[in-house]
């Protein structure tokens, strides 16, 4: 028995929703980071699913790009978070609002 494609999509949507909610409501920069990863992976899951349904390998290829971009993003992002933590001993994003107008 095969699992219908819709199920995968539902899981993907749930993961994306959880990730998005986490980004909006959590204040710790590291947790927000993890939530973003969650959203990216939800998108990856959807891509793979459609790739299977449509018999098009392009979706899976795109996933590799997303993985690479995510890895690069984590490198840069974590570097920034560490730098902020060093300077103010906190990783709460609401405290970092120097760029307001």
């Amino acid at each position, binding site marked *: 028995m095969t699992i219908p494609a819709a199920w995968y999509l539902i899981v993907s949507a749930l993961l994306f929703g959880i990730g998005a909610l986490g980004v*909006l*409501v959590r204040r710790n920069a590291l947790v927000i980071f993890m939530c973003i990863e969650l959203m990216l992976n939800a998108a990856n899951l959807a891509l793979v699913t459609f790739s299977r349904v449509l018999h098009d390998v392009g979706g899976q290829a795109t996933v590799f790009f997303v993985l690479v971009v995510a890895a690069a993003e984590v490198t840069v992002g974590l570097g920034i978070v560490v730098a902020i933590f060093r300077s103010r001993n906190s990783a709460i*994003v609401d405290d*970092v609002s120097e*760029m*307001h*107008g």
Partner: protein
Amino acid sequence: MVAAAPWMLAFALGGFVVLVTAGRRLGEPLAGWVGTAAITGAFVCAVVTWLGLLGQSDRTVTITLFDWLPLAGSEVKVALLVDPLSTTMCLFVTGVSALIHLYSIGYMHGERDFTKFFVYLNLFVFSMLLLVLADNLLITFIGWEGVGVCSYWLVSYYFDKDSAASAGKKAFIYNRVGDVGFLVAMFFLFTHLHTLTYLGIAKGAPTLSSTDVTLVVLLLLFAATGKSAQIPLFNWLPDAMEGPTPVSALIHAATMVTAGVYLLCRMNQVLDLSTTGRATIATIGAATAFVAATIATSQHDIKKVLAFSTVSQIGFMVLAVGSGAYAAAIFLMVAHAFYKGLLFLGAGSVIHGLDGEQELSRMGGLRTLMVWTYATFLVGWLTIAGVPPFSAFFAKGDVLKGAWSYSKPLWAIGVVAALMTAYYMTRLFVLAFTGDPRFLAAAGGRPALHPPHESPWVMRLPLVVLAACAALAGLLGSPLDRYLAPVFTNSPAVPLSSSVSTTLGIVDGVVAVLGLGLAWMLWRGRVERPELTPRFLERVWYWDDLYDAVLGRPSTALARTSAEVLDPVVIDGAVVGTAVAVRRGARELRRLQNGQVRSYALTIAVGLALLVAYLLARTF
């Protein structure tokens, strides 16, 4: 040797170039001598050209210098038209100019901008020669503007004096108003005849409809009223007396102001085609001669009297043009150049001797102190008054004969103006030269003056030469008439019978003596006669006040409205309003940029949701 004609221009231009480049190094008085030499050279060339023209039967020679503007179907060439009219003009223009240059060396002695004066003066002579020698309207126009701008520079020569600066502007603006007439006439002729050369226009003019011809003539007349100071644009000339006196003599009496009359004479074949146009010209001339003469009787400044006298005399010339007596107009122009140049230079000598005093009420008794000036001024006075053996008697007589055969009422106005001419000039002479010296006592807040010294020989020589010319120019009458005949071919003047001619001559002589005697009786031993100098005439018929009321004050009011309402409210409102709106908008918008990462994320999420909702709504 007609080929000498371009050398006239070359001499004047050469003098200008030398003075403008090396003038300051030459300094005083060498720069003055260079300027004088250049113009004397031009005079010699003019004589050579004239003799050359006399020696050949074809009296119309066109000398093409180079092609200038290729225009639709025809091209404008820089070419000179050497014919009796232009050579006559060149002779007296260069001759009088040379004398006045010489005089200026003495008069301008010690002035701050001695060299600059001669720079302008040489450029003026060049422009004037270009004006009279041009073979087409466009080149004439260049000269026309050239003399205008030199006049502007020289009127406001003492530019640190407020009155001189504004007089210069007034002269320039009045001339520009007249120039509109010139330009429109030129455009009109070119669109209809496809040529701008005088010979081409003369040939093509009969093909124009009568309304078109009248229009062109009236436009040219308007141009002439500006340059030649006729009604309605005459007010600038008296103000132009702010310039140094040699300038008044050269530009504002002898040469430039006659350019309008020259233009009308040059276009005589066109003028002859329009009866309405000629009637208007004659009327304007007679009216100006009369009005300016009345004003001259009541002026208190020696140069102002002479200025209005100039306006009046040019009125006579314009009257002659309107009457079709073109040769008489040119005759009077030549004679006028001599005697008015002489009178102005004499007045300049007086002013020079009296440390710049120009009020007639502060002169008197100069007869024994300035003998040369007195003697030459005496000749000038008798000449302009029209006393028989002197030139103006014949010249003005010819004009009035022309007017008689054209229209009796205009002749009568001319005779009255001639009577007043004799009157006001006698008044000037009596006040300035006879009676007791009045400059020795302080008056009107001004200190007493030293008795004047006679002017140096560079100033006396031109006076003597001009006095001789003014006295003897009457002999030119009939030779000039014959010489100019090829230019004024279809002159419609009707010849008078000899008895009428003699009677008119006697009338002129009687009128001159009458005016002279009247003024002598009224002003001998008197200084002020308020009843004879009414305010209406002192204030120039309130002419300036009229222009002020009709044009000046409404324009000022408009300008003030613009400055006080239009500019701060409308223009600044728009400009400042934009700035304020941007600033206020920015102040509100910057609140969105709060620096909270999570609120940005929320905004993105909400925007995305709305976008998706919109797309879904559109799909279903």
